[in-house]
């Protein structure tokens, strides 16, 4: 592995200054699970590593009734998944966390790092000078693209690899970002970017900026939520397609809700038509079929991934049936 010098700032401002203004000079180390892979594969070649773990308060979770959940960026995935409040109230997040990677990686990886992880596209991770690495070509466009995106693609066709990000998007979460001279909070919806906006990054972070906290609003008591992840192995795999649903259930019909999708787009994905249709929807076979039919009608599958459309439509029906049971 490439050598680098190591820095242990005591506060976020110092960390931000150490990161500087250029991507390749210095990188942030939280759990390190994605970072070490990137360095070992020569995708990232930092001269300096900035360890975030001496910065106080980033490993704390707070819940306040009415205000919701505030999660420090350095909270380990397994610690978050094990919390009663997450399991009972934010079930969709607990399920997405439990579906992430392997027990060891969940003991190491942090929620902030998980949101900021780089894509798993085999051309990006492999020895290809692809668009996302500053090259001229997306090799997936005409290559092996079974696992690539069906929506939001072009000129690069990655899918975003995070499970918790999909759950957090359905939960209407936001992230706080600290930089050299300011701190601000943005909805998760505006945090991720598409290749058409920036083909080399997956989010809005500048080199000197750091995700410090994630906020999840409180939920009405009639909320039911869940996450279904379709993968090729039973465990320890990235999503082929995943669906997160957060529904407010009335006595006879869904009052309203949001759904978000993983494995389909370069960022955690939402479709307004689906969320609109959930409004006062009665859960019947006919209505579920209608909902599935309006989902992903704008999708543009590549040569090998058209199967994702019926798959995501069936998962939409399945997750609603599960939550309505």
């Amino acid at each position, binding site marked *: 592995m490439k050598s680098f010098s*190591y820095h242990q700032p005591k506060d976020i401002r110092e960390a931000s200054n150490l990161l500087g203004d250029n991507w390749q000079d210095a990188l942030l180390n939280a759990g390190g699970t994605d970072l070490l892979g990137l360095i070992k594969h020569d995708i990232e070649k930092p001269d300096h590593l900035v360890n975030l773990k001496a910065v106080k308060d980033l490993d704390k979770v707070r819940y306040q009734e009415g205000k919701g959940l505030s999660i420090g960026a350095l909270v380990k995935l397994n610690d978050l998944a094990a919390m009663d409040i997450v399991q009972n109230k934010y079930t969709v997040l607990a399920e997405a966390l439990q579906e992430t990677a392997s027990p060891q990686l969940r003991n190491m990886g942090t929620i902030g790092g998980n949101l900021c992880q780089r894509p798993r596209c085999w051309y990006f991770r492999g020895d290809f000078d692809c668009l996302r690495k500053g090259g001229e070509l997306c090799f997936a466009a005409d290559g092996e693209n079974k696992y690539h995106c069906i929506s939001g693609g072009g000129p690069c066709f990655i899918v975003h690899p995070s499970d918790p990000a999909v759950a957090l998007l359905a939960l209407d979460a936001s992230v706080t970002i600290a930089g050299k001279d300011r701190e601000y909070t943005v909805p998760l919806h505006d945090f991720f970017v598409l290749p058409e906006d920036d083909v080399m990054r997956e989010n809005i972070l500048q080199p000197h900026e750091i995700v410090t906290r994630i906020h999840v609003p409180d939920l009405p008591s009639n909320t039911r939520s869940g996450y279904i992840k379709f993968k090729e192995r039973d465990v320890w795999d990235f999503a082929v397609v995943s669906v997160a649903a957060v529904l407010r259930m009335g006595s006879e019909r869904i009052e309203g809700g949001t759904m978000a999708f993983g494995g389909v787009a370069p960022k955690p994905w939402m479709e307004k038509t689906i969320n609109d249709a959930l409004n006062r929807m009665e859960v019947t076979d006919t209505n579920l079929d209608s909902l599935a039919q309006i989902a992903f009608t704008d999708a543009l599958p590549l040569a090998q991934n058209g199967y994702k459309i019926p798959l995501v439509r069936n998962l939409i029906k399945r997750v609603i049936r599960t939550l309505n049971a």
Partner: protein
Amino acid sequence: MAKNKKNSRSMSRRDFMKGFGSGVVGGSIMLQTLHAAPPPTTGTFKDESNRVELTLKVNGKLVQTKITPHTTLIELIRDKLALTGTKVVCNHGECGACTVLLDGRAVYSCHMLALDAHGKEVITVEGLMQGEELHPLQEAFIEKDGMQCGFCTPGQIMAAQGLLNEHPHPNREQILKGMSGNICRCSAYPKIADSVVAAAKK
């Protein structure tokens, strides 16, 4: 001459590496009281050759050393401390052969920086035994034949210990999920699961 030749042959690669390793250990590692040491830090921003101080506990022993920042935990464990029970297979945090416990929880030692273990306690497979006595998990893997070639076994056993720390009496589903970060190329999975069940009863 013949005798010497025989002796040199009987010295396994492992013994050689251990001997070599412990020479390094003697030279660079001090045992000290583990205190709430401040986290390590390099000197100046641009000094790349600077080695960093590291203090941690490995199998109950206190270790203080200096390492280059890009040293992984398994490189420290195997190359510096000569604890070669922990195996490297994929070296990418995917197969689980390198699993050790960090403050009681299973982690991939090939895929974390040794500096991230600063001030923490590491247990490797060598740390499970009490003197010459096998740990209940080791006994269970032998009794239930929880292996074929055995190369993944140290990692399987440490993952199992991490699981039992979290769930002392795991059900079948907890075992399958809890052990899912460890790959066995011989596919001894049913007997590995049986071994964990047996160990939980001990």
